[in-house]
């Protein structure tokens, strides 16, 4: 059964602005998530330097023994990445959909400060709906 474990959103400087856990085994405290987010931001940048051909935009998929990590980077440098079970399909579409929700519910919110942690209720609600729909779709296949 393919499942989503967690979702991170990081701003263009590498700071974590949103984190949601959907069922990892170990609880991670806030400091750890912040560190992991910055670490990912740096790794993403370094991977562009090691490319054999020009035009590299950074890591899109990382495959490990027990999980896969899909990353989507917007044109402005905001990164959305999701930790899921190995072999989960259609994560790129989910990430693009989450990016749309971000632009609608976060960026168009006049009280939201750029690069700050996201505290928008509508974003949380529609994100939960999107992830739930994805879960149901994955179970059905």
């Amino acid at each position, binding site marked *: 059964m393919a499942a989503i*474990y*967690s979702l991170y959103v990081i701003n263009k400087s590498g700071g974590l602005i949103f984190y949601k856990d959907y*069922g*990892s*085994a*170990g609880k991670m405290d806030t400091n*750890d998530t912040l*560190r*992991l987010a910055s*670490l*990912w931001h*740096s*790794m993403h940048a*370094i*991977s*562009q*330097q*090691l*490319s*054999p*051909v*020009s*035009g*590299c*935009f*950074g*890591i*899109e*998929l*990382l*495959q*490990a*023994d*027990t*999980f896969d*990590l899909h990353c989507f980077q917007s044109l402005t440098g905001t990164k959305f990445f999701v*930790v899921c079970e190995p072999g989960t399909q259609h994560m790129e579409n989910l990430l693009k959909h989450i990016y749309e929700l971000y632009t609608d519910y976060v960026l168009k919110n006049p009280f939201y400060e750029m690069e700050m942690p996201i505290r928008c209720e509508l974003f949380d609600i529609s994100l939960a709906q999107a992830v739930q729909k994805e879960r149901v779709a994955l179970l059905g296949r």
Partner: protein
Amino acid sequence: MQFFGGTEISPSPPLPTASGNNGNMMYIFNRNGVCLLYREWNRPLKTLSSQQDHKLMFGLLFSLKSLTAKMDPTSAEKGNLGVPQLPGQGCSFHSFRTNTYKLSFMESPSGIKIILVTHPRTGDLRDSLKYIYNLYVEYVVKNPLYSPGTPIRSELFNKTVDQYVRGLG
């Protein structure tokens, strides 16, 4: 994780699909970060000197391993970020893909890291990396004139690896 399957010492190589020119670069590091081998077949863009490039690659892999061990969603007990992991301890990644390349990684129990950089649409190369590791054991480790921890200078090994990588799909 059983590293060597059954009684085979050198598993037969995965069937090559002979489309040629797929491999870009290959690195072999030992556990101390010494680059034992660097092969380059197709690398139009070179941004750094070789020394810096090797260090950057090793550093990237070390940090990615640390990240995957900490981010593992299936284990409850995780060490702190940055604590060096023993080979085989904790979750480790085996490949990552960008829009321009795919990097496949394998670490042996003795800390020998083999990295293959290929075209982004390459499939799973874990078996191929195991085969390259066996080539390393046969041609390099079993060579009485080779001292461990020093760069590999074996024409035969280079030729065999070149030939094998050229045959990968």
